C-alpha cells in the first residue's frame, strides 16, 4: 500500500485504507464483485474478490459525502472548456503504417487478426 504525497492520480487504495472517511458503510457482496469483474473482463482470484469487496466498498463510502452537496438546477459538465459538436471535413487520408500496426498483433493469419473460435 502506498500513501503520502499522492498529488496525482491518487491511489484509490489510500482511500480504501483511510478509516476516517467512514459514513454509511455498506459492504459489496461477493457476487457483486464477481459480476463487476465479468463486466470489466478481468479474472479475479479468490483473494482478490475478497480484497476488492472491502476496498471498493470503502471507496464508495468515501464518495458518499458528495450526495450531501446541493446541485439542484446545476448542469453536469460535458466538456470542460465548453466545446460542442466539433466537426471536421470528411476527407480520406492514406495511412502508410499497416505493417507497423500488424507487427504488434499477438497472432495474425492471412493479413487478419487471429482469434479463438467465437461460436
Amino acid at each position: 500500500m502506498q500513501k503520502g504525497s499522492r498529488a496525482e492520480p491518487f491511489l484509490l487504495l489510500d482511500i480504501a485504507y483511510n478509516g476516517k472517511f467512514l459514513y454509511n458503510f455498506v459492504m459489496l457482496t461477493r457476487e457483486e464483485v464477481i459480476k463487476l469483474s465479468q463486466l470489466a473482463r478481468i479474472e479475479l482470484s479468490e483473494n482478490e474478490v475478497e480484497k476488492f469487496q472491502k476496498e471498493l466498498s470503502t471507496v464508495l463510502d468515501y464518495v458518499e459525502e458528495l450526495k450531501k452537496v446541493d446541485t439542484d438546477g446545476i448542469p453536469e459538465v460535458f466538456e470542460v472548456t465548453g466545446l460542442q459538436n466539433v466537426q471536421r471535413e470528411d476527407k480520406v487520408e492514406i495511412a502508410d503504417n499497416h505493417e507497423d500496426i500488424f507487427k504488434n498483433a499477438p497472432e495474425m493469419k492471412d493479413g487478419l487478426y487471429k482469434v479463438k473460435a467465437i461460436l
Partner: protein
Amino acid sequence: MDYSYLSLTELRQALDEKRVSSIELTKAFLERIKKSDLNAFITVCEEEALRQAKIADDFINSPGENPFLCGIPFAAKDLFCTRGIRTTAASKILDNYIPPYDSTVIKKLKEQKAVLLGKTNLDQFAHGSSGETSGYGPTKNPWDKTRMPGGSSSGSAAAVAEGLAPFALATETGGSIRQPASLTGISGWKPTYGRVSRYGVIAMGSSLDSPGAMAYSVEDLAHLAEVMSGMDPKDSTTGQAEVPQYSKNLSADLKGVKVGIPKEYFVEGMEEGVKQRVLEAIEELKKAGAQLVDVSLPNTKYGSLVYAIVCPSEISSNLARYDGIRYGHVTKDAKDLMEVYTKSRAEGFGDEAKRRILTGTYVLSAGYYDAYYKKAQKVRSLIINEFKEVFQKVDVLACPSTPNVATKLGEAANNPLHGYIADQLNIPGSLAGLPALSIPCGFARPSDGDTPSMDGLPVGLQIIGPQFGEQKIFNVGYAYQQLTEWHKKHPGV
C-alpha cells in the same frame, strides 16, 4: 564545456553559432544518462537520437533560420507514442508495444528537429504519484536518492533535475506535472485542458489529461508552449483558440496584476518550511508590483471526491482497449475468446489499474450512473463556476504546489496525512481544466527524518490561471524568476 543545465535559449545560440553540434550535445546527454543511477529512463534510444542529431546538424549547416528546438535533445514520458520506439506506459501489458504512429506533440517536436534521447519512467499508466507503481522499478529523487521524485511523471522530473535532458515532455491528469516538478526543484507547466493535443498520449482520464512540459525556467516553458500548443484535427477537444507568442510577450512587470491567495490552499498539516517558503515567494511577487488579494474557494474540499468518481470512470473506459487481440500482452492459457480477455487483462494489469477499472465499472453501471457519475459531474460544475468567479476578481492564484517536500521511497505509507491535502492543491484545478505552473521557490527540511542534501529539499510555488490564461501564469512565473535564483539551483552543484 558542460552543456547540462543551460537554458533552451542558450543552447539555441550555441548551436546557431556552431559552438557545439547537435551530435556533440546528444552524445554528452547520452553519456550523462548512462552514468545516472536514478532509473529515470525505461528506454534510451541512442541510435535513433544520433541519427536525428545528424539530420539536425545538416539542417543547421544549411542556409536559413533554424526552428527554435532544432538540434536540442529532450526526453519524453513513456506515455507519448513514438513511432518505431517501444512505448510501455510503464506497464507490463504494453511491454513489447511498438507504436505505428507518433503522438501529435512528438510530431511537432520532430518537425522542429528536436532530438529524442529516450522514454522516461512513470507510475504504471500514470496511476500514482510517487513513481513507485512503475512496472520497471521506482525512480529516485536526484536531491536525495533515498526519496521519491513524485509522480506520475517521475522519470521526466528526475531527468531534467539531474541534467540528463534540457527539457522533458510530461503529462498531467491530477497533479502529475506540478507535484514532481515541485519535489525535484524544476519548472513544470500543466496546460489548459485542450491547449495541447492528447492524440497519441496513452489515455487515462480523457476529460482531464493534459500533456505538458518540464524545464529549468518559465522562459523555456513559454518557448515549448508555443511549439506544443494548438488545434489538432485528431483531438477535437483542442479547440480553436490561437496560440500567442508566449515567449515574446513575457513581462516581468507585475504592476496592476492581481494575485489571489486562496485560503483553502494553506491548510493544517502542511510542512512548516514549505508554508514559509511559499509565503516568502508571494512577498516577492508583491515586490514585482503585484497586488495580493485574499480569496476563498469553498468547494475545494469536494475536488478529490469528484475525482474519485470521474477518473476511475474514464479509466475503465480507456483501459477497455487492452484485450490481448491487436497488441499488448496476451495470455498463454485461454480456452476460449472470453478467457483471452479475462486472463490477459488479469495478468497484464497491476493492482491499482484493476481497482480503478472495477470502481469505474461500478459507478458507470445501470442504476448507479445518476447517483455517482452524474452527481460528480454536477459538483464539478460548481468547482468550475467557483474558479470562474474568483478569476473575475484576480488574474492568477498563488499557493503551494505540494504540502510537503519529497518523502522517502517505500515509506510513503507512514505519511498518510499528506495524501488528502496534496489532492486538494492540484485536483480542483485539473477538474476545471485550468493551466498551472510549479516553480522552485527555495528549500525546506523534511518532516520525516533527515536528508543529506545540505540546504534541505526543493519547495514549489504553484501559480494557477484561468482557462487559456497561459500568458498570465507565464508572466507571473517569469517575474518571480527574474527576482530569484532558486530555479538555477541543481542537485550536487
